[in-house]
């Protein structure tokens, strides 16, 4: 009951936020090109990602949607042969500028991966990891508060509150993924990147994650990569269709799925390419 009431509260807050913040642009990408060695993976992509909105990247396998997602928090920096060109701004600041520390950027742009990857630590330690390394909590009580809030927001608190010291790897797949979401939001990021967060999960766990994503929209700009068009249609407000490294079409989700402008988008959506 408490959880439901809370969810309703969050919804109200969500509407309030939307009314206040509108749907300002959070991330702007201009002329982004990515190479993996000789392979030109992303070709001249321009996109504006709105705040407090779920943006879905769809497209066939290998179309570059995950690669582009990983540009947004500079995870591609960890790959030796990867080269990124172009300009990506967050709140008007170039995130590839030399004075930007990718480590600090990643605290502001959280990421959830395709396969749940909880650390082999306790549930509590998993969530406390980010706040600890960034020194977000002054004392244990504050840290406890962050952990509880993050777990609640990831809709996992009620399932794990009695066993916070149990290993995170012992949870079910869906719970592990929600733990990873809780872990990501514990550092209070502004943007949440999700790389096919439900592709390794069963339908019930997927539904829970999708519901959660919808709730997370109240606080964050959410960018989700998915290979499931149904999922994109269900959870997102904006959709970008990638094909062979190009951003083919970007717009309101409803418009992309009902009235695509580009013939390639239509072919993909109707199942003729992919």
């Amino acid at each position, binding site marked *: 009951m408490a959880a439901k009431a809370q969810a309703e509260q969050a919804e109200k807050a969500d509407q309030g936020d939307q009314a206040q913040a509108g749907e300002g642009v959070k991330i702007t990408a201009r002329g982004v090109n990515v190479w993996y060695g000789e392979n030109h993976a992303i070709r001249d992509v321009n996109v504006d990602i709105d705040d407090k909105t779920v943006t879905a990247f769809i497209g066939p396998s290998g179309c570059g949607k995950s690669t582009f997602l990983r540009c947004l*928090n500079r995870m591609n920096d960890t790959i030796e042969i990867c080269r990124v060109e172009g300009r990506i701004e967050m709140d008007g600041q170039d995130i590839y500028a030399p004075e930007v520390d990718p480590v600090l950027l990643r605290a502001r742009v959280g990421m959830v991966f395709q396969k749940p990857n909880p650390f082999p630590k306790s549930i509590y330690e998993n969530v406390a990891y980010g706040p600890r390394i960034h020194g977000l909590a002054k004392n244990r009580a504050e840290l406890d508060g962050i952990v509880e809030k993050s777990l609640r927001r990831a809709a996992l608190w009620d399932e794990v509150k009695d066993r916070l010291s149990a290993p995170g790897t012992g949870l079910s797949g869906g719970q592990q993924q929600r733990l990873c979401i809780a872990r990501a939001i514990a550092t209070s990021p502004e943007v949440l990147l999700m790389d096919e967060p439900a592709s390794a999960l069963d339908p019930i766990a997927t539904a829970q994650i999708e519901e959660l994503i919808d709730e997370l929209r109240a606080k964050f700009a959410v960018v989700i990569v998915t290979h499931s068009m149904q999922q994109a249609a269900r959870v997102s407000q904006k959709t970008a269709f990638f094909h062979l490294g190009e951003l083919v079409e970007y717009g309101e989700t409803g418009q992309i799925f009902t009235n695509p402008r580009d013939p390639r988008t239509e072919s993909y959506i109707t199942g003729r390419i992919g």
Partner: protein
Amino acid sequence: MGAKLFLAVLALAAFAYVVARARASRAAGGAGAARFHSRPGQHGLYAALLVLISGWGLLFAAGLSSDILIEHLLESEILRLAPGLGAIERALVISDAEALATGAVSSSDDALRQQIAASFARWRFWQVWGLSALVLGAASFALLLALARIRPDFRARNRAERILRRGLGVMALIAVLTTIGIVLSLVFETFSFFANIGWRIDKFLFGTNWTPLSGVMEGRLDPDRVGALPLFAGTFLITLIAMLVAVPVGLFAAIYLSDFASPRTRAIVKPMLEILAGIPTVVYGFFAALTVAPLLREWGAALGLSVASESALAAGVVMGIMIIPFISSLSDDVINAVPQALRDGSYGLGATRAETVRFVVLPAALPGIVSAMLLGMSRAIGETMIVVMAAGQGANFTFNPLEAVTTVTVQIVMLITGDTEASTAAGPAFALGFTLFCITLLMNFAAQRIVSRFREAYD
């Protein structure tokens, strides 16, 4: 003769393979032929295996028993001709007779030896022909049997696989039995040593006076002189120094290679480290004795310390260098086994490389690292050449790394290479060896337990 028969059977087996396969494929290919259960090659394999087993098996069994029989016949003949000869002399006569019969040089050639040589030649003639006939006959029979069995419903594959499976089992059994044999001989000799010192195991384990052979050439040992505690202390001291050198260097090298080095650096540095592992320990030994020990002595003198020319420190440091590649490559393996997904998860939360290594990678790899250390340690404990050359020989009960100490392995070497009666010197050596074996066994066992727990961590 044995080798020729052995090769003949092998040739026959190859022939059996070809013939059986050809026959099976002809039979299977014929019009209206029933469908064969096994493929032609499997029939061939079965025929070849059957030939090999019957041929080699009979060669081994009959060859051995006929050798024993001939020996027995010759002995009884010697006894009849010269009743007064002792067992050792009889054996000597037989070996001389064999030499005479085969045209080699013998110690003497009296009438007895000539006569025995003649009988030997006669028996040997019969043995050669009998054995050849028996072995080749059995192998040919096996070949014919296998050929006769080539029928559509004959399960040659299953039969051949069963034979191969048993062959593999026999090989595994040989390895296991050898191990058991070695352990049993260790245990047996250790027991007889303890019996020799009147079961004063406490004196052996906790006594501090180790001069087991002084004044003893043969027979009873003095329990007061076999106190191995200085040896254990020396081994412990040197192992400790070696681990103090090897663990930090090896572990940090592994961390650097797996998480910080660029692929190019890694491609250069890792093989270099492995080269370190390829240096023979005897080279490390004289490196320690001729280079490191004098250096330490000089430094010690400069600091006003007296360092013995053979010191635990020199041996320990060099032993540590020897173990570095061992620890670094094992640690590198377990660190690399930590899934990239965990690292990505940590980077994705805004952790630096160092934080990721410290808080995610190392805790996840810790059990494997600990087991790498234990394995490195059991190598250090068992290492011999370095300590023989650089640590000293006197059983000096001290924990001062600047003094000469001795280790369990050094004392075993001294005992076995000394000029005391082997049966007397072997006792303490076996007891020491057994102790060493128990310690390393325990450590390997612990390492394996830890590793097996580690494997479950990501599932």
